[in-house]
C-alpha cells in the first residue's frame, strides 16, 4: 500500500467512493437495483449517489432480480457499463440464468463480437441473525463458471481498488461484499488507484503456517494470527482477492515456504472455495507440505437464526487459532 495513505474510510464508504469516482469518470456507468436511489440500499452503501448523479443513472427497480440483471446484460452489450445491485447474495439464485447462461457466455458464443462489461455487486456473510435465506455465501457457484470474474474484497482499500477494476473490466464481474464488514474502517487513499485481478495480497508475513482466507475471513485470519503470535506461531495470511482469476502462484509459494496451510472461506465447505484452493495447493506444494491442507468453511447446514446456533456455523478467530495450533502440532 502506498505511503501517502492517511484517510480512514469504512468499507461502505470505500465502495461508495469507488462508484462515485467511476460515475464521474465515465458517463456510461449506471446503477440498477432495489431501493438504490433515495434509500441508498438498506445497508446505506449508496447514500448520496442519486443526489449527485440523478435518477437516470441511479435507478430504482421493482423486485425483479432476474429481470433487471438481464437488463444489465443487454445494456452492457449496447454501450453502457451497468452496476447491478443484488441486495442479498442469497437472491443470486434468481439471477443465475442471466449471469450464467447469458452474461458469461455472450462473448464466447458470439465468437468474440459482443461484450458484457457489467458488474454485479452483492453481499455474503452470516451472523447477522437474518435467517437461512439472508445469510448465504454463494460465491463458489459463480467462481465455477467460465466467462465470469469474481472479486472478494477484505478491506476498505481493496474494496475501492477492486471495484474500480471491476467497473473498467470488459467482462461480467461478480463483486461480493460481506455485509458484516460495511462498518470496518481502514486506510484508503483519496487519489485514483486500481487493484489488478488475479493478484493475491499477503496481508501478514509469517513463517510457520499459511492461512489463505477470503473476504471477511481475512479479518478472522488476522485475528487468529495475533493469537498464534502469542502462542509462538508465526502465521502468514494471504488473501487471493479474486477467486477467478486465481493467483495460484502466490498461494503455492507461501505453502512451500511454511509447509502448513489452512484455507478459510465463509461459503459452504463442500464443493466450494476451500476445496478448490486446497486442491491447488496440495498439488502445487505436494513435496513441501508437512501436513494435509486444513479446510474451514461454513458448516454444511442452512444458516440457523438462533444466535447460539448461528455462531457455531462459521469459522471464528478462536476456531482458526485452534486449528492452526493443532496443525503445527502444538495443540
Amino acid at each position, binding site marked *: 500500500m502506498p505511503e501517502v495513505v492517511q484517510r480512514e474510510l469504512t468499507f461502505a464508504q470505500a465502495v461508495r467512493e469507488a462508484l462515485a469516482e467511476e460515475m464521474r469518470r465515465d458517463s456510461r456507468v449506471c446503477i440498477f437495483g432495489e431501493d438504490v436511489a433515495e434509500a441508498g440500499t438498506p445497508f446505506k452503501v449508496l447514500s448520496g449517489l442519486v443526489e449527485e448523479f440523478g435518477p437516470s443513472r441511479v435507478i430504482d427497480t*421493482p423486485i425483479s432480480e432476474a429481470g433487471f440483471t438481464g437488463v444489465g446484460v443487454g445494456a452492457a452489450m449496447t454501450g453502457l457499463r451497468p452496476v447491478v445491485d443484488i441486495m442479498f447474495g442469497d437472491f443470486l439464485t434468481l439471477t443465475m440464468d442471466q449471469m450464467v447462461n447469458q452474461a458469461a457466455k455472450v462473448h464466447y458464443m458470439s465468437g468474440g463480437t459482443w461484450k458484457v462489461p457489467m458488474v454485479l455487486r452483492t453481499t455474503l456473510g452470516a451472523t447477522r441473525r437474518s435467517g437461512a435465506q439472508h445469510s448465504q455465501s454463494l460465491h463458489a457457484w459463480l467462481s465455477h463458471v467460465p466467462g465470469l470474474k469474481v472479486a472478494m474484497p477484505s478491506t476498505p482499500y481493496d474494496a475501492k481498488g477492486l471495484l474500480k477494476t471491476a467497473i473498467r473490466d470488459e467482462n461480467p464481474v461478480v463483486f461480493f461484499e460481506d455485509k458484516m464488514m460495511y462498518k470496518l474502517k481502514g486506510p484508503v487513499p483519496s487519489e485514483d488507484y486500481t487493484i489488478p485481478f488475479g493478484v493475491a495480497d499477503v496481508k501478514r508475513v509469517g513463517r510457520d503456517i499459511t492461512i489463505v482466507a477470503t473476504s471477511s475471513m481475512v479479518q478472522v485470519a488476522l485475528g487468529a494470527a495475533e493469537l498464534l503470535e502469542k502462542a509462538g506461531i508465526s502465521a502468514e495470511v494471504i488473501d487471493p482477492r479474486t477467486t477467478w482469476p486465481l493467483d495460484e502462484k502466490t498461494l503455492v509459494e507461501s505453502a512451500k515456504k511454511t509447509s502448513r496451510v489452512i484455507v478459510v472461506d465463509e461459503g459452504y465447505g463442500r464443493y466450494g472455495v476451500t476445496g478448490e484452493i486446497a486442491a491447488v495447493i496440495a498439488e502445487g506444494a505436494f513435496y513441501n507440505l508437512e501436513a494435509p491442507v486444513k479446510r474451514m468453511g461454513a458448516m454444511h447446514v442452512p444458516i440457523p*437464526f*438462533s444466535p447460539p446456533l448461528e455462531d457455531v456455523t462459521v469459522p471464528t478467530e478462536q476456531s482458526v487459532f485452534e486449528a492452526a495450533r493443532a496443525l503445527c502440532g502444538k495443540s
Partner: protein
Amino acid sequence: MTIATDQSKTNATAGVEQWTRMYRRMVMIRLFEEQVNELYTRALMPGLAHLYVGQEAVAVGICEALRPDDYITSTHRGHGHCLAKGASPDRMFAELLGKEAGYCRGKGGSMHIADPTTGNLGANAIVGGSAGIATGAAFSSKHLGTNQVTVCFFGEGALGQGVLYEVMNLASLWKLPVIYACENNLYNEYTHYSETTAGDLLARGTAFGLPAESVDGQDVRAVYATAKRLADRARKGEGPAFLVCNTYRYTGHHVGDINREYYRSKQEEQQWKTERDPIKNLADWLIEQKHNDSEALDRIQAEVRSEMKAAVEFALAAPYPGPEEAEQDVYA
C-alpha cells in the same frame, strides 16, 4: 391507480361470536407486534422484524374464511398470518428470540415461522418465494381430493417476481384451489408501488385467466365476505382467484425503519391510522350493532394484553437450543 371497493361485499354473514373472535384476533396481532417492537427496542430480540400493524384485517378476515386444515403461505411480514391461522403467541415469541420452544426450535426466526398443526406452510424471506409452494399445496389438495384451499399471502412488491405469473398460469390451467392474496400496503420497502408496478393490479390476475377482485383491506367484514366467497368457490372446484387487499403498514418496513419522511409523509400515516383503522372500525360497528358494548371490547383488549405479556415472559425465560442442534434437521 385507485381501486374501488364494492360495498355489497360487506354484506358478510357471520355471527356475533365470529365477529368477536375476529376482533380478538386483530387485537392479538396488534398487541403481539407491540411486544415485538418493545423487544427490539430493549435489544432483547436478535435481528429485525417486519411488523403487521395496520394490516390486521387482511390476515384475520381471510383466515376466518378458512378451515383449520386449509393451507397458507406467508411472507417476511408474517406474524399476522401465523396468528390469524391459529398459532400460539408464546411459541411465536420463543421463535423470534431463537429459543428451542419456538415453532422452528429457533432455527427459523421471524421470517420463517411454520406450523403444520395450523396448516401454515411457512413464512418466506424471499419475496414471491412461496408462490410455488402454495400452488403445489393446492395441487396436492386437488390431486388427493381433500377439498382443502390454500391462500398465498404476498405483498404487492411480489408482483415484480416472474415466478408468481408462472404459477398463476399453472393454477389457472389446472383449476387449482388457491387464492393469491396480494396485500397492497403501497410500499415495497422504501419505494411507492406506483414506481415499481405498471398497469392495473387486477389485470395481473385476469391476464392469466384468474377472476380478480379488490377489497378494502381495512374492513375485516369486507375481507371476510370476499375471502369466504372465493374460498367456497375454490373448494367447489371452480379454480383459483386473485384478490387485492388495499391496506397500509402503520410503522416502518422493519422495526429499525424509524425516519420515513424521505419516502412517505407523517400526515399520510396519520390519516390511515385515524380514518381507516381496522380494529376501531370493527369496534364501532360491533357497538353500533349492539353486538358488544365498549366494556366488553375493553375487557378483550385487557385479556389479550396480559396474554401477550405472559407469552413474552415465557419466551424470555425459555432456554436456547444446545449448539449441537445446529447440525440437526438438515435431512429428514
